[in-house]
Every structure is written in structure tokens, then in C-alpha cells.
């Protein structure tokens, strides 16, 4: 599995969506991310892998400034989204997050109906002109989330009543509904069973046609299956970044090799 990365779809876009350079993140005294430089391409799935506590999730959260919600967290360095620094004081994180959506580790549907869950983003960002418009956005998002067929008859049932895998796809649909340009996924399958996982993985692969997707994952197999680019994090350092096929077949750094062969983890 390692040596056969999902490369059936040609990388059809080489534009750089996000460029991070010299990024340092501190939690109080602790230095969580050390001088990370990475370039994330548009319409590509980029996977962050590495052992627990290596900083991959922290780095992911700096990409849409979710770390702002943690008081003791401090970010240094430059992260450019389409050439604009997202840590520029003029940037409103709210507007940024509309462009850089996020899906979390645990499915977290709001305690509202399925419809309201998906309509939440479009409503707060004012994306729909009227009810019909909103209905259309919701349907489109649910279709993209590959869950439309399962829920179209019960759009007004609570989202918390779905199964785990359905909940996660609902959350993806919810994120997609705001029309983001980048979709960040923080271990989206870690709380799911294998069948649900494969459904979500398939979905991620399809999302690549429209978005730049960044996925944090614990599972090397998953990274190999869904991503075209892979970054390996270790102890807060970005050890190696490159094509997924290269990372898994021909790692340059001994630490990467140790990790993918299971000696550190």
C-alpha cells in the first residue's frame, strides 16, 4: 500500500495556495513548532504525518488562525494565502476562516437539524439571497459531502442522530457549504470505523477537484491513499516534505524512514 500512492488523478494545478515560511509557534514557554517552511498547492491533497505531539495539528490550526482562540498561543513567521499574510493585523480571522474551512477530529454536528447545520455557514456569511437559494446551497453541499442520498428525506431531523461516519460527512458538507478555498482536516477519520473511513477518504479525493485540502492523519496508509504531497513532522520540526510517492518509497531523512518503517511512532 505504501508504495502505491493515489496518483491516478493528475495534479492539474501547480499554483501555490499557502506558503508558510519561518513559522514558530509557542504555547506559553513551550516551543511547539520550530521554523517550518512549507508550500501547499491548490487542488491537491497534502497530508501531514508524524507521531503524536509532533505539532502537525498545531501547525494545521495556525493555517486558519484557530490557535487565536487559545490565550497562551503565540505564532511567529509568515503564512501567505494567495500571497497575503494571514497574520497581518488587518486580517479579520472571521473572514479568513470563511476562506479556509476546517473539519475536526471528532464529528461535531451542532445540536440542530441537518439542514440548519449545513445552512449555518452560508447564513452567517450571507451567501444566500433567499430561501430557495439557501436550499440549493444546502443540497449542493450535502451532495458534495456525499451524504445527500442518505439524508434527503430527513433534512429536519437533528444532526446528532446520524451515525459517526454520517456525522463526519455532514461536518464536511457543512464546511464545504461556505465555499472555502482551502479545507483543513484534522484527523477526520480517527473516530470512525473502517467503512466510514473509506467513505470519507473517497470523498476527500473527490474534494480535490475544487479545493486545496490539507489533512492531518495518524495513519500512514491513509496518507498514502489520499494525498499527493506529504509532510513529515517530528518534535515540532518539518523533517521532510515532498511527493507522497517519494516520501513513502524513498525518504531522504533517516527519521522519516524510521517512522514509516515503524521504528519511531
Amino acid at each position, binding site marked *: 500500500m505504501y508504495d502505491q500512492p493515489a496518483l491516478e488523478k493528475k495534479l492539474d494545478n501547480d499554483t501555490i495556495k499557502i506558503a508558510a515560511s519561518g513559522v514558530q509557534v509557542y504555547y506559553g514557554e513551550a516551543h511547539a513548532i520550530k521554523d517550518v517552511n512549507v508550500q501547499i498547492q491548490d487542488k491537491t491533497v497534502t497530508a501531514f504525518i508524524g507521531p503524536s505531539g509532533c505539532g502537525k495539528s498545531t501547525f494545521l490550526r495556525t493555517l486558519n488562525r484557530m490557535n487565536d482562540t487559545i490565550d497562551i498561543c503565540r505564532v511567529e513567521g509568515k503564512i501567505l*494565502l*494567495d500571497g*497575503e499574510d*494571514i497574520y*497581518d493585523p*488587518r*486580517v*479579520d480571522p*472571521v*473572514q*479568513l476562516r470563511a*476562506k479556509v474551512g476546517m473539519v475536526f477530529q471528532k464529528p461535531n454536528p451542532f445540536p440542530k437539524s441537518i439542514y440548519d447545520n449545513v445552512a449555518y455557514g452560508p447564513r*452567517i*456569511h*450571507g451567501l444566500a439571497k433567499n430561501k430557495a437559494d439557501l436550499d440549493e446551497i444546502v443540497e*449542493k453541499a*450535502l*451532495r*458534495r*459531502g*456525499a*451524504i*445527500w*442520498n442518505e439524508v434527503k428525506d430527513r433534512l429536519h431531523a437533528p444532526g446528532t442522530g446520524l451515525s459517526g461516519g454520517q456525522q463526519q460527512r455532514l461536518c464536511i458538507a457543512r464546511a464545504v457549504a461556505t*465555499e472555502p*478555498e482551502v479545507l483543513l482536516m484534522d484527523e477526520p477519520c480517527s473516530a470512525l470505523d473502517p467503512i466510514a473511513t473509506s*467513505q470519507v477518504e*473517497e*470523498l476527500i479525493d*473527490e*474534494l480535490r*477537484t*475544487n479545493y486545496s485540502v490539507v489533512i492531518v492523519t495518524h495513519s500512514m496508509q491513509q496518507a498514502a491513499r489520499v494525498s499527493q504531497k506529504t509532510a513529515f513532522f517530528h518534535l515540532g520540526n518539518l523533517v521532510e516534505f515532498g511527493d507522497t510517492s517519494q516520501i513513502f518509497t524513498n525518504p531522504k531523512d533517516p527519521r522519516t524512514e524510521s517512522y514509516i518503517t515503524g521504528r519511531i511512532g
Partner: protein
Amino acid sequence: MTDATQFGAEAPKPKTSILELDKRTRKRNAAETRFRYYGMAAVAVGVIFLVVLLGTIVRNGIPAFTQTYITLNVELPAAKLDKKGNRDPAEIAKVTTFGYNGIISDALVTALKDNGVQSDMKDADLRKMLSSSAAAQIRDAVLADPSIIGTTQSFRLLASSRVDGYLKGRVTRESLARDKNLDAAHLDIVDQLQKAGVVSRSFNWSFIFGADASESRPEQAGIGVSMLGSLFMMLVVLCLSLPIGVAASIYLEEFAPKNRFTDLIEVNISNLAAVPSIVFGILGLAVFIQFVHLPQSAPLVGGLVLTLMTLPTIIISTRAALKAVPPSIRDAALGVGASKMQAVFHHVLPLAMPGILTGTIIGLAQALGETAPLLLIGMIGYIASTPPDGIISGFLSPNSAMPAQIYEWAKRADPAYYERAWGGIIILLIFLMTMNIIAIILRRRFERRW
């Protein structure tokens, strides 16, 4: 599974820069700021209420801690006080306080003359500057030591509440216009006497340690006796609620099987914690006074009622403290062959003790400030004028309690009593604050993180 594919690649959205705020974001941010201000305002209002409340208490209550006295040289003529001249205490006692009024008037007239104060006021009216307790005070001194008859003695006599109020700024010449007790002319005299040092204010120990007085003598009223009443009540509460509360918690937390009976107890405890305190007063009246015939107004009854009221609080906090002791401690004790009972009493209970004490002190503080149930068991309308003369009578003879005394004062017609009520509140709050601080220190000092 491939709903998504039918949409294919999207036409790219118009590019927007994240460096420029769009109109909608600006509006949303304004709403955000507003919302935040609402929250800040709510916190501020809460804190302001607290400050105003405490300010009102201090401003109104501090004057109760000083008292105006009039120092007079009183001539004690043998001709009036001991007509037969044999210094027989029984004979002297026959002269009632009424008989001393003339003496006091004479002393006042002398004091005015000595200090060069002109006044054409009648003697009886002059006396209104003094508390009606003044005559009793002199009489008590004479009875205690009959040898002072025939001499001139210096007495520090309580000024009347109006004069006291004038010195504290509560009473003004305008407010006296409709007062039949005192008029502006008195105040002129007071002004001059104050300059001469005859009228003076000093710290009012008898407010803190003294007894309550009748409705017409607010200047004499003190909270000391009802403080004793509260003390005896708290002793009852402590001696009953701590052991019972701890025993009940140990059972529920360590031994109780999961069955209907323990469920019933649990439900009862959580409901009792929310029963209005006045209902406990009704319980006390019906059970302890009507049924068991315990004496009315007795601190014992008050203590029993407050015990029942505090028990749920103590049980809830004690259980939390027991729960916080990790099971490994119990396992360790059981592992060396201790019985369950020994494990609990030798190991768990001592470790939970700081938490239990903290909860108990907080429960006691609640009980100390509680008023409503005391009203029903007869702790108002009663003038706590004599301190109990022993431990048993401390529990059984009628008394008041601090909050009941404060309520009693607030009800009385004379506005001078408001000052006493606020003063009483200051003392009550000092007690409560001390108890809470002790609880906090206990918690800080002994709190253990497992």
C-alpha cells in the same frame, strides 16, 4: 457515493482579499463588539450592586459604633436619696428612678451654668437631652455603693438618641420641627456643651457587647446578648450537623448499595436542599414547639431547625470530599487486611477532613445568616435584654439571634434603630466573612490534588 462528481469543477469565485474587510464582516464585527459590551456591562452592574450594597451598609452602620455621652457632675443629696440617713440599702432602694430625675435636672442646670450656657428651658425639658436610662444608671451606682450619697460624683450618661443623631448628622434642625421629643433650642445647648467638652462621642462598646433595650431607648440597645443566642445556636448546629452529616455521607458514599431505599435518600437530600427556609421554620414550630413542647424562642430549637436546614449542604459537600479521595487509598488499606469500616475511618475520612470542614464552615455561615425560620419559632418580638446565666439556660431560655435582632430593630418605629440594624449587619457580615476566609484558607492549605 459520488454525488460530488456531478458538479465537477466550479467556476472560480471572484477573488477577494483577506486584507480588506468587506461590509458584512464590518457589520458582524460591530455586533460582536456590542455583544461583548453587554457582557461587560452585566458584570459591571453586578459588581456595582455589590459596591453599592456594601457602601450602604458601611455608611449607615458605622455610626452605630460610636455613641454620644454627656458627662455630668451629679450631686447626690442625702436628703432626697436616703431620708433617714442610715444608709440601709433596702431604704435606698425605695427611691425609684423617678426620684432621681430631679437630681439629674439639677446637675444639667449646673453644667449649663458652669459652661456659661444661657437657657430658659424648663428642667424637665432639659432632661430630654439625656437617655431615659440615665436615672437608672445613677440609681444602680448608688445602690452598688451607698457611701457615695452626699457627695458629688462625675457620671458619663448616655445622651438621648436625638442628640446622638444630631452629632452623627442624622438629625437636623429641620427634621426636629415635627419631633415632640426635642427641639432646635436643645441643639443650640448641645452645640455649646460639645465645645465645652461636656457632650462627647466615643466608641460604643456596649453596642457590641450590650443587651437590647426597649423600643423607646435606641441609644441603649446592643447586640451582645443576641450574639450569645447565635453562638449557642451555632453550637447546636455544629454538634449535630457535623457528626450526622458525616455519618450520612459515609454511608451514602462508601457503603450504600444501589437500591430503592438509597435512591429515596438521595432524592430527599437534593430536594431538601431546595426547600424554602420558611418551611423549615414551620416544621420547627409544629414539631419542636407544638409537639415536643420545647420552649419557644430557645436557641436549642433554633439550632435544631437550622441543623435540619444545613444538613443537605453539609452532606453534599462532604460527599464531594469523600469522592475526591482516590480509590487506590481504599484498595491499599483493604489490601493489608483492614475491614471496609477501618479503611474508611482510618484512611479515607482523615484525608477528606479538610474538605468536610470547609463545607461545614460554609454551611454554618449560611445558618448564621438565616432569619426566616427563626421568626416562626418566636425569636422576634422578644427583647433580648438579659444575658443567659449559664450554659443550660443559654440553650433553653428565650433569646434572640443576630439576624432576628437586626430584623427586630428594622421593624421598630424609631429611625434611630435603622442605624443599629445596619451596625448589626456589619457585625454579622464580619462573622460571615471570617468564617468564609477560614474556609478558603483551609481549602488552599490542605487541598490535595491526586
